[in-house]
């Protein structure tokens, strides 16, 4: 900031304004930045967002609770199952729904696999932006394995809508355990491979170390969450602080950085991938038997066979399909979860009808992006690319 006032005082210098985006290969979507440059140094950086504003919150108000779930997939499209989970937990809190243990365990596995998926795309594209193209091909190779598993579960590669209020959409596929164990066996060496390519790579270190520094105080003041916050050394992980969906049963560590620069955020995410594998390992070992969704017939569809033979299940089926699920009371609920990017939460206001009165998303990327000027001002324009990559933004979630 001192830099800027110095320039304004001296009439010899001129600040050049350049526009970056919304169509730019390194802005991860349609982010637009207005940069004021003094030579190569960024004096001021103003993000302009809204180029992907989809009206998701308004759309969700006009859909029933289950229909609204499909919209959540399309927000953070790198972690659709995490979004499903966040929304389902909020709805379940509102409805006071109990979830059987198998569904909870399966949710943890799927959520951690989705976190891996999100981090894989992040490390690939982040490296691609800075100039290391190989990593991109490696991470997308592993990502296909994950997508295959999601497809086995739900029939869709990305927009799964698999985790639903009440449990899961359908039982886990028969080869689920085998596929997960296969992932557990192959992923550690794959992560080693990325680390071989990047962690001690001098170019990578030069491009990321000491770049985009944000102090712990600033990170808290600006509301950063997720790896962007933990890269600055603040120990806040929703899975530890407010455990949900049975995370209190698993042993894992929260990787922390110390400098708050791009390199520390990178190390945090890589370490987080290893911790995710650790959680999946425990969860698949202890995956309980039992039903995959709640048997509360007021909120969860009865099995087809029951609906075909019994009167009462038929009525429930009819009511659920025709009206959707109806919350027992008016009220507001919020459950935070740790998505790949930070604290994600759905604030749902219910008026006691079959449609939510208001759904507000707490988007981690939106808040993380709002601190970007703290990280880039005073740095070189090339560092902006590294910073955008390192805070891992998804525009679908920022603009909603």
């Amino acid at each position, binding site marked *: 900031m001192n830099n800027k006032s110095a320039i304004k005082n001296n009439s010899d210098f001129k600040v050049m304004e350049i526009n970056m985006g919304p*169509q730019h290969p390194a802005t991860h*979507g349609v982010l637009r930045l207005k940069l004021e440059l003094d030579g190569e140094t960024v004096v001021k950086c103003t993000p302009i967002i*809204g*180029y*992907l504003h989809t009206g998701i919150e*308004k759309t969700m108000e006009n859909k029933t609770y289950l229909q609204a779930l499909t919209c959540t997939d*399309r927000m953070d499209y790198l972690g659709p199952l995490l979004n499903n989970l966040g929304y389902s937990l909020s709805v379940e809190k509102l409805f006071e729904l109990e979830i059987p243990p198998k569904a909870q365990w399966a949710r943890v596995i799927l959520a951690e696999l989705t976190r891996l998926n999100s981090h894989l795309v992040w490390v690939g594209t982040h490296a691609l932006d800075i100039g290391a193209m190989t990593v991109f091909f490696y991470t*997308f190779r592993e990502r*296909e394995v994950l997508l295959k598993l999601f497809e086995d579960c739900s029939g869709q590669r*990305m927009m799964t809508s698999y985790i639903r209020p009440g449990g899961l959409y359908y039982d886990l596929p028969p080869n689920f355990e085998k596929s997960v164990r296969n992932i557990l066996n192959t992923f550690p060496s794959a992560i080693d491979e990325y680390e071989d390519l990047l962690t001690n790579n001098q170019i990578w270190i030069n491009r990321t170390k000491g770049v985009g520094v944000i102090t712990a105080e600033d990170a808290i003041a600006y509301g950063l969450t997720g790896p962007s916050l933990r890269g600055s050394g603040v120990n806040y992980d929703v899975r530890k602080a407010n455990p949900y969906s049975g995370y209190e049963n698993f042993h894992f560590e929260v990787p922390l950085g110390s400098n708050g620069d791009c390199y520390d955020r990178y190390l945090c995410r890589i370490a987080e991938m290893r911790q995710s594998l650790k959680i999946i390992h425990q969860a698949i070992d202890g995956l309980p038997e039992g039903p995959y969704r709640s048997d509360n017939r007021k909120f969860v569809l009865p099995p087809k066979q029951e609906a075909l033979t019994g009167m009462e299940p038929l009525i429930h089926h009819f009511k659920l399909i025709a009206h959707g699920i109806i919350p027992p009371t008016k009220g507001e609920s919020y459950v935070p979860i740790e998505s790949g990017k930070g604290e994600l939460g759905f604030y749902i206001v219910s008026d006691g009808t079959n449609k939510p009165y208001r759904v507000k998303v707490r988007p981690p990327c939106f808040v993380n992006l709002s601190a970007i000027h703290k990280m880039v001002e005073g740095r070189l324009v090339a560092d902006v690319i590294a910073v955008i990559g390192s805070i891992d933004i998804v525009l679908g979630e920022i603009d909603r």
Partner: protein
Amino acid sequence: MAVDRLLRDGLILTTVDRVVNWARKSSIWPLGFGLACCAIEMMSTLASRYDLARFGAEVMRPSPRQADLMIVAGRVSINMAPVLKRLYDQMPNPKYVISMGACASSGGIFRNYAIVQGVDKIVPVDVYVPGCPPRPEQLIHGINLLQEKIMTHRSQGRK
């Protein structure tokens, strides 16, 4: 005949249109233009498993002035519509548009105030690829269809 002998020696008879079309379709340069979810599947199409390079369309150009195919990958908001139109106008002729995914083709599940209900309201679309998001195979199929379309191009007379 003399022509017979020339043909035996490696001469090929063809039309200028065919050669030009063949060259065009074999190296489509798409504009690297990701909007939303479909952009991730577009990246998958380019990456290791699906490898769009097999069809000569892997060179994503960051600048519209070097591109001849625009893959509209994702929903187009009303804020983005003027930008998209400008990018299309900046592309040199001949230019093609693939509308990838349900949102770009028709608005998809987002029938609301913020989303343009189909990108064909703004730019002419050559191939629609359905799906939400389409699988990489579907996008490759769409590009193949576009290649067939390019082969039918005639420089004079009937198009």
